[in-house]
């Protein structure tokens, strides 16, 4: 059987959710049965072999991440937790919503298999507050699973037990950062935590914890059911599987599609997104959400995978592209992003808390005709100060600098035009 779009096979055109009956009718919960027939160690091995990389943005190999969780006797007595990161708030990212709203059982099956592999006994779905429909669907799906014996004290008679809860958040983008998410799930302020210790050994309530993205988890039971080789065969490049790619901005057909990992950028934009809207030309694009570096036309033929995009000086991030067109002002574009990150800073560490608002302020000055020559130096300094992992307590602030630093690199004239009062977009344009 060749299943080429495992993640979206239950997604209907009208986006109505797939219920338990429909999900089972289409082969649902077979992955769970397959997993329970194996040992957790075997499941983990399959996952490692599959080369699945985290879909939450950083692309860390999932099997490797899981292998740090203490197993068996090496784990002190107590709970082990699996958390699904459904806090999707990265600007320009709208892929997890699709999976959550159209096929909640797929996520739950993926989570049960994942939890079994990790021998976790409690699972949480941390979902952003605004996803009301998805929250309700997940709750219903969990209840349905209890009825079917997929969740609870003795799952399918194997003795494995797992409880699952949906936690609806209360806002704040930083909650998506996995350690901030853990703080928030503990009922605290969502300040990220320093690593080490990694959540795998000391996470939620000090216990071993794994946090994975919705899309990552949705893959797991497919892999266990169909094998690592199948999964690898889905991808066009080294990074295996399929990927939900999205495009937003001034394209004819903005949307989100499951495509083979490594599909070329041009194909995604031109074929699936239908190319640019009439009258607009592509000036640049952020390949995977608001905290990735700009790429431009010259990068259109690159494969959308972690390594290729990384080598081109950006990150594949969430795989949802944001298009900068030639009628939108790059300065306004990055101002919007930097202001977003400034507002969403948790306020814990200095460069982020105070550096981002200043950067946003400078961009605002430039955008609104109050800019001065030295402002470019200030921005360059801020990029150096804030824009490297390790300079700040977590990755929010360095991410925030990525669009800015690359805009300064690729679109210097946009800043100069503003400083000299001649921005073609902002003088009479929309922005």
């Amino acid at each position, binding site marked *: 059987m060749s299943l080429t779009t495992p993640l979206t096979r239950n997604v209907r055109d009208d986006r109505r959710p797939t219920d338990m009956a429909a999900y089972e009718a289409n082969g649902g919960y077979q992955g769970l049965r397959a997993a329970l027939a194996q040992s957790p160690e075997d499941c983990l091995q399959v996952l490692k072999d599959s080369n699945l990389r985290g879909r939450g943005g950083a692309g860390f190999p999932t099997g490797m991440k899981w292998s740090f969780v203490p197993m068996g006797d090496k784990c002190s007595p107590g*709970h082990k937790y699996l958390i699904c990161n459904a806090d*999707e*708030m*990265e*600007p*320009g*990212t*709208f892929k*997890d*919503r699709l999976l959550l709203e159209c096929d909640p059982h797929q996520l739950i099956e993926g989570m049960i298999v994942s939890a079994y592999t990790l021998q976790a006994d409690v699972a949480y779905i941390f979902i*952003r*507050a*605004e*996803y*009301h429909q998805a929250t309700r669907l997940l709750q219903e799906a969990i209840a349905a699973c209890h009825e079917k014996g997929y969740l609870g004290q003795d799952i399918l008679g194997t003795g494995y037990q797992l*409880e699952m*809860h949906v*936690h*609806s*958040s*209360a*806002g*704040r*983008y930083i909650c998506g950062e996995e350690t901030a998410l853990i703080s*928030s*799930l*503990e*009922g*605290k*302020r*969502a300040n990220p935590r320093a690593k080490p210790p990694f959540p795998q050994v000391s996470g939620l*309530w000090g216990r071993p914890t794994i946090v994975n993205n919705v899309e990552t988890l949705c893959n797991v039971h497919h892999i266990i059911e169909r094998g690592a080789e199948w999964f690898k065969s889905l991808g066009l490049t080294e990074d295996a599987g399929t990927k939900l790619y*999205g*495009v*937003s*901005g*001034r394209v004819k057909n*903005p*949307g*989100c599609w499951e495509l083979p990992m490594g599909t070329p950028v041009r194909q995604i934009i031109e074929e699936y997104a239908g190319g640019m809207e009439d009258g607009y030309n592509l000036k640049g694009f952020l390949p995977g959400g*608001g905290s990735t570096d700009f790429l431009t036309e010259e990068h259109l033929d690159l494969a959308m995978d972690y390594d290729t995009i990384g080598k081109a000086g950006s990150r594949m991030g969430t795989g*949802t592209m*944001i*298009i*900068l*067109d030639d009628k*939108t002002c790059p300065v*306004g*574009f990055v101002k*919007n*992003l930097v202001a*977003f990150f400034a507002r*969403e800073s*948790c306020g814990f560490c200095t460069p982020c808390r105070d550096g981002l608002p200043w950067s946003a302020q400078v961009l605002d000055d430039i955008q609104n005709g109050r800019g001065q020559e030295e402002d470019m130096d200030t921005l360059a300094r801020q990029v150096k100060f804030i824009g490297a992992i390790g300079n700040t307590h977590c990755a929010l602030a360095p991410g925030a600098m990525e669009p800015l630093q690359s805009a300064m690199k690729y679109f210097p004239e946009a800043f100069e035009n503003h400083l000299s009062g001649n921005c073609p977009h902002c003088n009479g344009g*929309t*922005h």
Partner: protein
Amino acid sequence: MSEANSMNLISALSQEELQAIDAEIAHVPYRDAVAIDALKIVQAHRGWVSDESLSAIAAHLHMSADELDGIATFYNLIYRRPVGDKVILLCNSISCWIKGCDNLQQRITEELGVELGETTSDNRYTLLPVTCLGACDKAPVMMVGDELHEDLCEESIIRILGGSTTP
């Protein structure tokens, strides 16, 4: 805090609210771990979290009002000030910005007479900005109450807001 004192504070919460909070407590190893859930439960009933409600929740969770307020004020969707009957969450993140959310905001402001953060004088709406709503392919978007509205334009905005104001 004396027991009597704390009972007194807690009495500001309804039985329904307390039951919902207790149901959450059953899932977690520490009582105060449900702080955010409890704030949301009370907010769902009352629209916002007053000082009185906050102190009541804190007493019920055996934590201080100060600590709970630190949590409440961290999260943008916990309202520590009264809001209108419905909150308009207008996405102003990048994809919506490209598609003109600034103009929409201006249009809303003209229509309802409120800036970001304000509540209409008839108390129907509070207008707030929100982070990317995860519907960028349908930008610009906003939420009114729990409902998501996609592919907005100036006309549809007026229709939606006008529409939901007619009883």
